[in-house]
């Protein structure tokens, strides 16, 4: 099960996810509910869920099956071994930040991009360690860096260095 976070809805994630569709379900969490519920402020993350529907492990950040560490963790979990915890240190997003994020999603549904940018920028000013808000803001402000071919990682590094 893959859950894409994108305030703009499913169109952008679909460009990537159509390649894996069929192998597992791909859902779109525009509101960021899962991130808010588990306190994630960056992506990618993993929830390892047992047959009883109980979360056995929360892996905050760096959850990537291309990485040997992630694959080892999954193997240990499937073997029934206890695995280390990688839960977020912080609490969930603040109510004000959640309100602003929700407002941005609503603004995008109305095609009001300037309002969405304003709300996300305010949310980011309140929670500077929230990379989900930060990168979502970048993607809306600069779609050419994300959706016209490969994601421009060098540009993202420059933005981080400049504190944007």
């Amino acid at each position, binding site marked *: 099960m*893959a859950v894409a976070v994108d305030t703009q809805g499913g169109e952008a994630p679909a460009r990537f996810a159509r390649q894996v569709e069929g192998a597992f379900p791909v859902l779109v969490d525009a509101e960021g509910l899962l991130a808010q519920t588990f306190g994630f402020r960056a992506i990618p993350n993993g929830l390892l869920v047992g047959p009883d529907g109980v979360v056995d492990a929360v892996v905050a950040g760096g959850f990537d099956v291309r990485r040997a560490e992630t694959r080892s963790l999954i193997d240990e979990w499937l073997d029934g071994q206890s695995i280390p915890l990688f839960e977020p240190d912080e609490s969930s997003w603040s109510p004000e930040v959640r309100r602003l994020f929700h407002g941005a999603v609503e603004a995008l549904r109305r095609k009001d991009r300037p309002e969405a940018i304003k709300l996300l920028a305010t949310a980011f000013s309140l929670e500077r360690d929230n990379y989900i808000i930060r990168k979502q803001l970048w993607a809306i402000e600069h779609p050419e860096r994300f959706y016209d071919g490969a994601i421009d990682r060098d540009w993202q590094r420059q933005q981080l260095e400049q504190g944007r």
Partner: protein
Amino acid sequence: MNGHDPGNRFLGVGASLPAFSFPDLDGSLKPLSAGGGENFIVFMWASW
């Protein structure tokens, strides 16, 4: 479980997977628990 937010309970290890449903790529609502019944992984990602 780390911390608590009164407006949105903060979950962690040992919690039941929340009963969220999200649209799939075709817009059909599907429960987050769609992989239930056996071990499964929820992978959160973004196209940015």
